[in-house]
């Protein structure tokens, strides 16, 4: 993937910025790389499992559930010439996210509820890609609504689905197959897989609108 390299078995992103959450910095010749630990980030786990998503570097991305910006900081390294709209509803992690947004010119921080996309419909443009990592029961509905509002026709999405937050008692495999069926109503699913052993009871789903 663009600007990503596996260094000593761990992904890292090429970056001209310093450490955001205490991650290590590697120097390779004249290039700086920020270590991207798969246990901390689901996207890193996905990459380490061998799945990649094509990025040109100038994409417009809507990131739902940015939290304190761990994964976001690496995604911002990858699409260094694009724009990322980062939505997060919790005030506390947002403080940390703001630190990142002040530093990175390609991040637009939005303190909004991703379940109410109409509230930021006059701010976010039509995007090429939606990345979602929200541990909420209605996570599929959130993706659907945001896609209707913002995703270009033919645009792609990547969602990290957590079985337990959809149904805490059911078997996760059953939950996942229901989720995939539900998603395939509105999207074309390109690929999906678990994030074992880095994140338990999670799958990622990559698809097209």
């Amino acid at each position, binding site marked *: 993937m663009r600007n990503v390299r596996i260094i000593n078995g761990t992904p890292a992103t090429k970056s001209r910025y310093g450490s955001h959450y205490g991650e290590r910095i590697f120097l390779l010749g004249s290039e700086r790389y920020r270590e991207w630990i798969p246990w901390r980030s689901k996207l890193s786990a996905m990459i380490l499992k061998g799945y990649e998503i094509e990025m040109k570097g100038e994409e*417009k991305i809507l990131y739902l559930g940015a939290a304190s910006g761990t994964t976001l900081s690496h995604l911002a390294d990858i699409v260094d010439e694009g724009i990322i709209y980062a939505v997060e509803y*919790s*005030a506390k992690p947002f403080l940390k996210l703001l630190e990142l947004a002040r530093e990175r010119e390609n991040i637009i921080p939005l303190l909004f509820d991703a379940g109410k996309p*109409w509230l930021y419909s*006059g701010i976010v443009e039509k995007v090429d890609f939606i990345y979602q990592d929200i541990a909420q029961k209605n996570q599929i509905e959130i993706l659907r609504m945001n896609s209707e509002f913002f995703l270009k026709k033919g645009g792609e999405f990547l969602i990290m689905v957590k079985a337990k937050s959809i149904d805490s008692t059911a078997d996760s495999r059953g939950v996942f197959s229901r989720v995939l069926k539900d998603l395939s109503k509105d999207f074309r699913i390109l690929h999906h897989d678990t994030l074992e052993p880095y994140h*338990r*009871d999670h799958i990622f789903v990559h698809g097209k609108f």
Partner: protein
Amino acid sequence: MRYNLWFGTVDDGIRISEDFKKSFLLASNESPLPFSVSELGLRVLGRDYYRILRKTAIEVAEERVRKELGSDEMYVIALVKALEEVEEAINMVREKDEDIRLVKEDLAEHFERALAEMERLRSQIEKEIDAVMQKIAPNLTEIAGAKIGAKLIEKFGSLKKLAFAPASKIQIAGAEKSLYKALSRMKRGKEARVPKHGIIFLHSFVRSLPKKKRGKMARFLATKISIAAKIDYFRGELEEELFSSLKKRYEELRRA
């Protein structure tokens, strides 16, 4: 059609807002826009579009973050208190309903309607507690459940106080009366048993176990709640691993 954008409004023509921070929060539209905001914005604001947007977004967020931290906690505390009173009211009305029914059925319909209305209110409050708790204490909500988590915050006074409380205190919170009764009996040299659980007895992992094992589960649950509250207070992000350890312990106790 009129569209509300962060830098102004569009109907027949474009009206640029005088205060971007204000219009940023009014940029709500019922349905998806038939055009891309940035396309229009780049035409109106030129090359600086993204720079101005980013600056506005950061400024608005800074103000809102500052205002939000704190106020949600007070809200959840007020909600918990309201919930308790509403529950009590429901029980009382139901009791009276039964009393009256024994004599005459004439008013039954009115009672039923009032009770249904109150129950709707209760579930509304519960839903709101759920939503706010997800936001201010995701880990506590995951471990203890929104209602128990909110009750603990209310009991201790704030998330901060809960985060700094020892797990043993969390374990018996809500059972102070029987704790001090037991302690004073012990002091006098009599036999007494200290309570195993207070508020956290409401948790399904504690309640569903046989009596003998509840103490073990309550102790374990309290330690995990304590960790969850600390993560929520200091970091505020969901920690995925916490719940699985709790579940594992529950399964162990259930089988043993």
